[in-house]
């Protein structure tokens, strides 16, 4: 009997967050615009040579997407903390980790998915060969949820503080090093015509681990941060 109710609660949580995001559609466009502008700056700074841009294209797209996600990460819980609904969520009978997992999913759908959709455009701006683009998309599909999950734990830790923007970047950097290495490794291997499955498999393994552990860690972190 409790299972349908739990599923209903999950669906309601997801619907609420997606509706809220849809009401402020402009905010969804911001990370996308940011990523476009940052990618555009690279040819200006490094010169428009095809060979150079091709070599750095995969890494630039990955880092740009990571930075755009970092900018949007700060807002994950902020409005819910302001209006007190996050505290209601902590008090609710449903398991907090599951509810936070739904919030993370909604956040990933509204910030990372648009970035993945325009990633081929970003890659094309830097002349990444068309054959590599599917590998880049696969790497992004595995790496962005990983970053959302890790980021959510850190955002939850800073929930009780005022100035968290730069601090978030400082805390996320050491955690996202492996994700960036493996995602960029896969793209670079594909570009050189080498087998690229191993780093993708590592990313997938890390993602599975994070999907299980990160919501639990996020709930624990939020309890610490809100416990005043």
């Amino acid at each position, binding site marked *: 009997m409790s299972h349908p109710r739990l599923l209903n609660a999950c669906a309601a949580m997801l619907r609420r967050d997606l509706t809220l995001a849809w009401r402020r559609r402009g905010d969804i466009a911001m990370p996308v615009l940011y990523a476009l502008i940052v990618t555009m700056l690279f040819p200006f700074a490094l010169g428009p040579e095809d060979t150079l841009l091709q070599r750095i294209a995969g890494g630039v797209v990955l880092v740009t997407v990571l930075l755009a996600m970092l900018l949007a990460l700060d807002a994950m819980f902020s409005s819910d903390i302001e209006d007190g609904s996050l505290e209601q969520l902590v008090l609710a009978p449903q398991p907090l980790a599951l509810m936070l997992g739904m919030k993370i999913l909604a956040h990933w759908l509204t910030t990372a998915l648009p970035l993945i959709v325009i990633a081929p455009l970003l890659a094309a701006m830097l002349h990444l060969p068309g054959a590599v683009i599917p590998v880049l998309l696969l790497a992004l599909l595995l790496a962005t949820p990983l970053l959302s999950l890790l980021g959510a734990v850190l955002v939850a830790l800073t929930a009780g503080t005022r100035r968290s923007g730069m*601090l978030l970047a400082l*805390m996320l950097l*050491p955690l996202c090093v492996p994700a960036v290495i493996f995602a960029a490794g896969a793209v670079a291997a594909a570009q050189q015509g080498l087998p690229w499955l191993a780093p993708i498999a590592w990313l997938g393994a890390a993602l599975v681990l994070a999907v299980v552990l990160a919501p639990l860690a996020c709930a624990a972190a939020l309890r610490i941060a809100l416990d005043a």
Partner: protein
Amino acid sequence: MSNWIPLWLHKLGSPPTFYRFAGALRPWAMALALLFGAIALYGGLVLAPADYQQGDAYRIIFIHVPSAWMSMFIYAVMGVAAFIALVWRLKLAEVVAMESAPIGAAFTFITLVTGSLWGKPMWGTWWTWDARLTSELVLLFLYLGVIGLYHAFEDRRQGARAAAFLAIIGIINVPIVHFSVNWWNTLHQGSTINVFGQSKISWDMLWPLLSMMLATKFYYIASLFSRVRTDLLALEGGKDWVRKIAESEARQ
């Protein structure tokens, strides 16, 4: 009869007892740190022979390697203290974890600086994106993240708990980072000193290194104790035992 040890440990966890204990031990730890440090410097810079390949330039090892050991050892201490702080909510464990972070960050910074000074004549470059160098840099950022998060909260105990949680996440992350950057790029030499089995270093060079290791350990104890004492006074400002200390110092 034999339960005085757990009893003593329990008592040690209370701030006033630890304050007195740390105050009594700190000068001894500092003296031992200076003694072992001086012996190590004399042994390392004067007595030890020059390396057949690197000449005298290798002597920076007597600072570099003990600092690198300490940077990881202190992170482990911080992680254990953070775990104790989160599970049993011991105030002392929170303070120990948070006051270890700046000392660990300093040792990590020294490791990076001496490593880059050593790298210039040996590898011909100040910095290279090698696996060990990169993990050490990531370790520095982990320390700085913990320190930053601790100071971002207005309530110190809440900040300590949040930062303790971050320290534990970092402990899980360190092996992953180390493995991933190893896979990515490696130039640094492997370990020379092996706890199990034969070390690949001459005894003339090994004993100053071990002496310096003891010196850094004792320095850590001395530095940690004085930091913890200060922090305990600030944290327990309104309590009776702090007032008594303040009154007795005012009388002198």
